[in-house]
């Protein structure tokens, strides 16, 4: 897997699998500014471009313990820009045992009806 599909930071990682069209988030991601989140944005945008119009891109948060509100803003922004392109649909995977996911992930569905949320 090429390097630009994997971001590893202190306490977190984000990985894009171009074969399965899955972006998975791991650890605790509480970066300081939207500029610090820019590389995550870039990875997400590229993953979206590489997903065919009739395919779906999966965002897998099941192993992400925490995401701060700047991070939620980053993901929400990605959903809105995808909605504006209106190509591939999005699937969001969450973890029932992680409280913020239970409470906040459904917000993404309200941003775009082509987002399905699956909290497992």
């Amino acid at each position: 897997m090429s390097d630009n599909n994997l971001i590893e930071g202190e306490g977190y990682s984000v990985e894009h699998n171009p074969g399965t069209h899955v972006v998975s988030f791991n650890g605790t991601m509480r970066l300081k500014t939207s500029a610090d989140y820019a590389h995550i944005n870039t990875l997400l945008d590229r993953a979206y471009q590489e997903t065919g119009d009739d395919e779906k891109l999966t965002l897998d948060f099941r192993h992400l313990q925490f995401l701060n509100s700047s991070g939620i803003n980053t993901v929400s922004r990605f959903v809105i820009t995808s909605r504006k392109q209106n190509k591939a649909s999005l699937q969001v995977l969450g973890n029932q045992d992680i409280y913020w996911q239970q409470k906040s992930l459904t917000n993404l569905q309200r941003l775009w009806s082509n987002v399905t949320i699956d909290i497992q």
Partner: protein
Amino acid sequence: MTQVQPTQKVYGAWQQIPVTPSRQMTVDAQQMAAHWRRCSLSSDFWAQYMSLFIPTRVTEEYLGRGEVEQVLAYLLNELFENCAKFSNGSHQLVRYVAWSQDDSMLFQVTNHILPEGQAPFAKLIDEMLNNDPHELYFQRLEENVELDLDGSGLGYLTLIKDFGVQFSFRFRPQENGSTAVDVQAKVSLQQE
């Protein structure tokens, strides 16, 4: 017992509590900003520490220990991040205090700003406390895509809307020329 001075301004349902608890911490905002993961570390520590007030088994109507810990970790991290990001001026002291109450926990985090920073922050607080948080949240998200703001302005709104946290704010002008910002956050221990 401290009295609200005429120069002080309070927003929301402020709780005046005479007893200062022993659970407190002071840190330097600049240090926290420079070593960013200290926000995360401190919030996780206090979240776990406070969650030990919760019995291992609770009835259905209450949040379990693990849930409380996760709510507190989310909340405190947002509060510490704000102190680290928005403290301004030569007074960089941040103070954290926590009270355990009957069916809730109360947190108060204090940082300092320049006096001219009060009005714009107060305007935001007014807007936040007097409008539908749900509407504001989605409105802000859509706006953020167009603008490239540094703060996303979603921290408090997320906590109010998704976690049911109740906020109250107080501004206290100090003799040293800075203004202390006290943020109180009340977390209900009952299931919604």
